[in-house]
Each structure stands twice: as structure tokens, then as C-alpha cells.
């Protein structure tokens, strides 16, 4: 014991014997820091904290990917990486969100009834490990997503199914048993069987038959949009089978964190919680294409390495200022700060790109809160809100008011909203409507209306606590409703909790959150994605709106092959919801881009998840 103590005190003496010891340690730390900094900043090939080699791009955002598996990933940050490593049959055509270019598909045709899509695949495509891509691989990839049945599987599941409902059923064991390089006759029997969702016609040709999904035997005008999502991307069956295979209703652990795709980048590393590094695929099949066949979705990458860091907003802004990062995903509230920084380009995108942030609206659940069953109450609330003031105060005018459910900037928005004005602020009308509904109310000048009426019962008001803009909006709305006689109790929840509530499907009549701010952001770029999410949720789920007639119009719009029918149905839906006031359309925030001025080539697209507004990093480069 004594020797231990003596040893401890000898060590103690060396380290902290005198005040100078402290100083020495502090100086040592500084010297180490300085030395490390000097070393790091002068070592060739190492990006410094102030300048970045032009072959490397540093992008910073808040959330790290949820998964690397195209069949599982369902977050913007996950799709961002997946879209650089994997590829699908087609992709949005540059900035267009209604036309598509071939990626793994060279060409395609659609039958007159809209039920059959025939794809001719591009020859010579290989995965980054050299494995070939062909129609068998695509067949495997689509069924894998359906059989795994993970979060985003519904996107394909609307129109495609693993079962044809008549005894033909693709299971995990079938998928795992097939040889996709040299299929046996038995394997071919499965893949070429005609009455199924995906039918192989030949090594480079396949047909997709709609009608086996939960939409039923109907065409779907936005089917190509669903195919442009990662859920329909090609995965290498050899790699999957070597690493656990396909399991029904379960993710594949290996595929969650590793990625082997056909695209222009390869996943070099995913340091969970810190970063993802993508490096140029040196064996990329698209590098050998003639110029006539090239398009923005398949051209080879320019930048060698893309480092994606996941950091808090405050750090991202600091890193963009210091030059460590070249692109950041910053909130619009930072617009004023960033636009003053030299060498940084900040711009606000047109409202259609705001869809990446979501369309926002109030919902009123009449099943859970009886006063909302009176349309006069709902209309009173619509009139009590000063929309322009919210957009000005909360968003510094970087948002736009809208009329739902078709999002502004998307196809058919203008046609659907013809003759309608966004809801207007009219507190006097709001008070009168509330009084007519039997409740005590107050005019803006303080005059009491219906003093003998009922007191409007207090109601919980839900919003996302992680969103400062929703918080400010909620406070403004609470104040404005309070002034006409409606008391709301603000009940913020963290985003995940909030999202769980607004997407709930089972507690419409019992929820403690019958009133609040809801939102929807796209899963694929199509007006119908928004419309169906908002109109066919007979519960709080996104809208609290339930009307069988309107749901029927939604189905008709989804399956219509001519524009007039779509417009006609969307117009009816819009008007019905407008005058129903169950959902009060609030705002669509604009999206802000922030990058170093010498970084160019980003192609904005509403489907974009690369830095949340463009899809592919292959076009991004430094200006000369």
C-alpha cells in the first residue's frame, strides 16, 4: 500500500507539483494543437479547414442517413446517399418534374390503357464491383422491395404486388433461390410468367403490369414518378445473397450499412454519427456512353470525393463561413446572416422546391372535438388567422400562402384553384361566425358578441416543437384565436412524436390532439401523392379529413390518363375542401440554398434530396 501511495505521489509531483506544472500542461496542449493544425494543414492531399482541394466537396446537413438500402431508406438524408450510389430505370429530366430520362432503361413504352409499361434496358451496365445488370436483376430488385415490406414499400405497392392474387406469389425463398446470372428453366418460369407485376421478356427487356397493388386494377398516371424513387433502384442479387439474402418483412443488416450500386459514386465509408464519404466510381459504365446517349442523371461525376458531414445548424453556418464546408443545408432563418458572407451564394428557390420542406396546414378533427363538427366554427377559425402576418413575421416573407391539397408549383395547381382566393384574415367575420355557432365571441374592437352563449371549450393545439417556425406560428394563431374567444392550449411535441401523432391511423375519436399544424412533404414528385395523402386519411393522419366522395375523386384523378379528367377531379377536391374548412391551408416555405460561390452545377428538382434540393452530385463541380 505504502509503495502505491509513494508511486502515486511521485507521479503527482511530476504532474502537478507546482503552479508551473499547470502552465506547462496548458502550453503543451496548445503546442500539440498548433502542431497538429500545422501538420494537417500542410500535408499534401489533406483538406485544410480554410481551403478545400477542388477535387473534394464537403456538404453539411443535420440528419444522417437512415439506411443505405434502397428498399429501406425513407429519409431525405438516406435517399441523398442512395441516389448517388444506386440507380433506377429512370430519373427526373433535369429540373423537370413531369418528364423523365432513361438511366438503366434506354427506352420505354406505355400501353394505351396505361396498365403496361415495357422497358428496354441499357446494355453494358455493371455494378461497381463488376457484376452485370440485366432484366433479371431488375426483377429481383423490385420484388425484393415488395417482399421486404419496409417503410417506403407502399410507393411501389400501390400498383405492384408480390402476389397476383391468383396463386402466383413471389416469396423471399424464391428470390433467394434464383440464379440471376445464368437462370435455370425453373428460374425463368418465375421471371417470365406473364400474370405478375414484373415480367422479364429477355435479358434486356421487362414489362411492368399494373393492377397487382393495393390500388387495384387501375392505371396510375404517376407510375413513372414512383419508379424514379430509390425503392425501385437496382441492387446486386449476388451481393445480397452473399450477405444474408432476402427476408420477408425484415431488413437486411448488411445492406443497411453497405452499398454496391451501378452509379457514378461508390460508398467509401459511413462513420455513423459523423459522416459519409462517396468516391468516384472509376469503373462507371456511364463513362463510355456516346454523348448522344448521355443525360444529367447518368453523366460521370466531376468531383472525386464528396464528404457529407452531419452537424448541428450552428456548426454548419460556421463551417460555411470558415470555408471548411462548400454546401450546407441551413434553415431559411439564416438567410440574412449568410447573404452577408463574402464568397457564399445564397438563394431562395421558387415555391415548388419548397415541397421538400412540406406544405403546412391546420387540421381540425371533428371526431375528437365536438365543436369542430360545426362548419361555422371551422370557418371562423379560417377567418381569424392573419396569414400574411405569419409569412412576414415568421418567414421574413420567404414563404407563400397556398390552397390545397395540390401543392403550389406542381402540375394542375393553377387549374385546381381557379376562382378561389387563399383564406383571408377577417377577425370580424370570424367573431360573427363563432357567435352564430352559439359561442361567446369578441370583435377586434372588444365588443362582445352573443354574451349569453357558451364559452368555447379549450382545445389542445399540436405543433412540432423542433420547428421554430411552427412554434412561432402556433403562438400567433393561439393569440389570434384567443382574441375572438377561442382558447387553445399549446401542446408541442418533438418532431418524431409529432409525426407519429399526425400519421396515426387509429385514434381519430380519442386523440388528445384534435387541432394543430400538420404538414405533408412528398414521397415522389406528383400532385397525386399530396392529394391522396391529405384526402384519404380518415383520421388525424395528415388532415383529419374524411369524405368518401372526395376519396372517389382522388382515385379517379390518380387513375385518369387524360389531363382534363385529372383537372376536373382536382378542382372538385379543392373546392370541396376549401369550403369545408376542416383543413386551413397555411403556408409553403421557400427553400434556401447556401453554398460557396465557386460551387456550381446543382440541378434543383422537387424530388431532390441531395442537400435537400437537387438529386445528383455528378453534375456538381467547381467553377474554373
Amino acid at each position: 500500500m505504502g509503495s502505491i501511495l509513494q508511486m502515486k505521489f511521485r507521479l503527482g509531483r511530476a504532474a502537478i507539483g507546482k503552479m508551473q506544472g499547470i502552465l506547462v500542461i496548458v502550453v503543451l496542449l496548445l503546442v500539440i494543437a498548433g502542431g497538429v493544425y500545422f501538420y494537417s494543414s500542410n500535408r499534401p492531399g489533406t483538406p485544410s479547414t480554410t481551403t478545400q482541394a477542388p477535387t473534394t466537396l464537403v456538404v453539411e446537413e443535420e440528419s444522417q442517413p437512415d439506411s443505405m438500402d434502397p428498399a429501406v431508406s425513407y429519409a431525405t438524408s438516406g435517399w441523398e446517399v442512395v441516389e448517388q450510389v444506386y440507380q433506377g430505370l429512370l430519373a427526373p429530366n433535369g429540373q423537370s418534374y413531369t418528364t423523365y430520362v432513361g438511366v438503366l432503361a434506354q427506352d420505354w413504352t406505355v400501353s394505351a390503357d396505361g396498365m403496361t409499361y415495357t422497358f428496354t434496358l441499357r446494355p453494358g451496365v455493371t455494378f461497381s464491383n463488376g457484376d452485370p445488370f440485366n432484366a433479371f436483376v431488375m426483377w429481383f430488385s423490385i420484388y425484393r422491395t415488395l417482399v421486404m415490406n419496409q417503410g417506403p414499400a407502399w410507393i411501389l405497392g400501390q400498383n405492384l404486388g408480390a402476389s397476383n392474387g391468383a396463386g402466383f406469389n413471389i416469396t423471399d425463398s424464391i428470390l433467394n433461390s434464383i440464379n440471376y446470372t445464368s437462370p435455370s428453366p425453373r428460374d425463368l418460369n418465375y421471371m417470365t410468367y406473364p400474370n405478375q407485376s414484373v415480367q422479364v421478356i429477355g435479358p434486356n427487356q421487362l414489362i411492368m403490369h399494373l393492377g397487382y397493388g393495393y390500388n387495384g386494377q387501375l392505371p396510375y398516371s404517376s407510375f413513372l414518378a414512383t419508379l424514379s424513387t430509390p425503392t425501385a433502384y437496382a441492387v446486386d442479387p449476388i451481393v445480397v445473397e452473399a450477405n444474408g439474402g432476402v427476408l420477408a418483412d425484415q431488413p437486411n443488416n448488411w445492406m443497411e450499412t453497405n452499398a454496391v450500386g451501378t452509379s457514378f459514386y461508390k460508398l467509401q465509408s459511413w462513420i455513423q454519427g459523423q459522416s459519409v464519404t462517396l468516391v468516384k466510381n472509376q469503373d462507371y459504365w456511364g463513362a463510355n456512353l456516346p454523348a448522344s446517349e448521355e443525360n444529367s442523371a447518368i453523366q460521370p461525376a466531376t468531383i472525386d470525393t464528396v464528404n457529407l458531414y452531419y452537424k448541428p445548424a450552428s456548426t454548419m453556418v460556421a463551417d460555411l463561413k470558415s470555408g471548411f464546408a462548400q454546401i450546407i443545408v441551413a434553415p431559411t432563418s439564416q438567410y440574412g446572416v449568410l447573404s452577408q458572407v463574402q464568397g457564399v451564394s445564397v438563394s431562395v428557390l421558387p415555391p415548388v422546391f419548397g415541397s421538400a420542406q412540406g406544405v403546412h396546414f391546420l387540421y381540425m378533427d371533428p371526431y375528437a372535438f365536438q365543436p369542430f363538427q360545426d362548419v361555422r366554427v371551422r370557418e371562423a377559425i379560417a377567418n381569424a388567422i392573419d396569414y400574411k402576418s405569419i409569412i412576414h413575421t415568421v418567414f421574413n416573407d420567404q414563404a407563400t400562402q397556398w390552397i390545397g391539397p395540390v401543392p403550389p408549383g406542381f402540375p394542375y395547381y393553377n387549374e385546381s384553384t381557379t376562382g378561389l382566393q387563399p383564406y383571408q384574415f377577417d377577425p370580424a367575420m370570424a367573431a360573427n361566425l363563432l357567435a352564430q355557432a352559439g359561442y361567446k365571441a369578441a370583435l377586434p374592437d372588444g365588443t362582445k358578441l352573443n354574451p349569453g352563449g357558451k364559452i368555447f371549450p379549450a382545445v389542445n393545439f399540436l405543433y412540432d416543437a423542433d420547428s421554430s417556425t411552427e412554434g412561432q406560428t402556433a403562438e400567433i394563431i393561439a393569440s389570434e384565436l384567443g382574441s375572438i374567444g377561442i382558447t387553445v392550449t399549446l401542446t408541442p411535441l418533438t418532431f418524431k412524436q409529432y409525426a407519429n401523432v399526425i400519421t396515426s391511423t387509429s385514434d381519430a375519436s380519442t386523440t388528445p390532439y384534435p387541432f394543430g399544424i400538420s404538414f405533408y412533404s412528398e414521397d415522389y414528385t406528383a400532385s397525386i401523392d399530396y392529394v391522396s395523402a391529405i384526402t384519404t386519411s380518415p383520421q388525424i393522419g395528415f388532415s383529419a379529413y374524411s369524405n368518401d366522395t372526395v376519396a372517389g375523386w382522388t382515385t379517379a384523378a390518380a387513375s385518369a390518363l387524360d389531363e382534363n379528367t385529372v383537372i376536373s377531379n382536382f378542382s372538385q377536391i379543392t373546392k370541396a375542401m376549401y369550403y369545408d374548412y376542416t383543413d386551413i391551408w397555411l403556408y409553403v416555405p421557400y427553400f434556401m440554398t447556401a453554398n460557396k460561390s465557386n460551387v456550381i452545377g446543382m440541378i434543383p428538382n422537387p424530388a431532390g434530396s441531395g442537400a435537400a434540393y437537387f438529386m445528383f452530385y455528378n453534375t456538381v463541380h467547381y467553377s474554373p
Partner: protein
Amino acid sequence: MNPSVYLKDFLSLLVKRTIGAIGVSLGTITIIFLISHVLSPNPARLWAGPRARASTILAVQARYHLNDPLFLQFYYFLRDLITGNFGIDPLSGQPILAEIRFYLPNTLELVFFSFAILVVVGIGLGYMSGMRFSTPVDSMIRTIYLASWSTPMYLAAILGILVFATYIPIFPSGGMYSLSLSPVRSVTGFFLVDSLIELNIPAFLSGLQHLILPAVVLAAVNFGLISRAVRSSILNVRWSTYVKTARAKGLNEDEVKRKHILRNALIDATSLSAVLFGWVLTGTVVVEELFAWPGLGQFAFQAIYSNDYPVLIPIVVVFTLGVIIANFVADVLYSILDPRIAMGAQTGAIS
């Protein structure tokens, strides 16, 4: 003290603490489990995705027994914990044990480094303050440690990033090492150690550069307590009779300070340090999130945020065990540093 009695006391304390640790862990698990389920009774939709089909949600519910009674869910969960099979993370699809194995060494590396700074700076400043009682140096040190002590962790982290990563960019604002380096082969899981094993000096220096700022921030908000304790102890002993006696015996001043003042002052500081280890460990939740440090704290932050309680509970167990072990070490150190105090298993507090 008789070594055999000491060993007996030590083992007795070990057994008691182990039983206590099991009890505390069970209690913590129960509380976290219940709170998680109250907050989100059926998180299947949250885990499956906002527009997941009913069949997808049913598959998630079946996998995590979400439709079973709560006590059965708790049973399944405890069974998995006890058998070391922490299950599968519903959000990442990865085995939770593998995730913890990845994140834990990163956190420990940060905590050990931070703790070393904390102890050295804390004791050093406390000693200086005590020995210069009522001087400007004493006032200055007290101001520093009170200021640091009362600074919230998140504020210190943001200020650290702002000053040392933005205005004076000598440290990176986040991450564990530069992405331009080749990955280091994981042997121990500790990045600095592994880079040394590989003799990969650039990786080691990069790791060190990334480690310093979060470690200093973690230490900066925690060292004050040690400084205060050391200062207080110094003030208690520096005018005591035995110190006067030592001086009267003719010992030189350095020896008096080292052997009679500092040694006694270190008793409280040492036990307090062990407790502070637990504080630093739990403080990583904020620091790791802000510094994008891929450790258990950040993992916990994300799990809380995502209602991912199958992940959160094992993390809490790890943190709880860390705090329990730190407290146990504190008890042992206390008895080693002050032989008058036994571990008290059989003989009470003072022998």
C-alpha cells in the same frame, strides 16, 4: 491494516455494490421502459414510416411484440438484455449490441481524455487558489471555476466551436478524424490507440486534433467542482497543527506542501473525481451531438429523439453501469488514500 481484512472488506464491498448495481440498473430500465411506453405506446408507425401500409406496421409490431401486454413486452426485453442479445435497432436494422460496440469506445476515448484534462486542471487550479488564499490569483481562479461551472454544456460547446473552429480555426468543428485519411483498422475500437498500433501517425494526429476541443469543453464545465474541493481542503489543512509541526521539524517548504498539504487535500478531490467521471460520461450526450462525435452520447440523443427505446434502454444501462463503477472506484480510492477510512463492509465507516 491487515491485508486479509482489507481484502475481505474489499470483496464484501464489491458484492454489495454489484447487487446494488443490478438493483439500480433494473430500476432504471423499468423507469425508462415505462416512460418510453407512456410517451409512445405503439411506435410501430413511427418506426415503419409515415405512410407505411398496414402489413408493414403489423410486421414491425410482431417483431417487437408491441401488441402484447406491457408486462410481456418488458419480459421479452429483459430476457434479451440478460442474454446479451439486445435485439435489432428498429430504425437502423442493425444489431444493437454491434452499434454499442461501435459507439462506446469513441465515447470512452473522449471521456478519458477529457477526464485527464479535468483532473489536472481542476486539482492544479484548486491548489493554486488554496495556496494563494485571498490574493488576486485566488479571486481570479474562483471566478474562472464559478463561471465555467455555471455555464451550460451546450453553450460552452457552441462557444468553443465559434471561437476555436471559426474565428481562430485551429480545431475542426466536428467529427472524429479527417475523412481524407484512410480508415484505421479497428483493433481496440479506440481510434487513437488503433492508429498508434498501426503506426499511422497522420491518423493519430488527426484524431487528436478532433479530440481536443470536445474534450476541453467537457472538462471546462466540470473542473470547477474539483478546484473548489481542493481549494477548500487546502484551506482546511494548510494551517493545521500537523503542518505547523512538519515545518517546525525543519522540513523544507516544498516537502511540506507536497507531502502534508497536497496529499491530504487530494483525498476529497480523488473521490470527487471518480464521481465526476460519471458526470463527464453523461455529459457526452450534449457534447457529442454538437461536435458530431460518433459516440454513445450522440447515439442516445438520436434514440431519444426518435423514440427508439429498444436502443435507448441498453444505452442507459451502459451509462448507469459507468456511473456505478465510477462511484465504486471512488469508494476504493478513498480508502486507499486515507487508510483511516476502511471500506466499512464489516467494521463501519471508521476503523
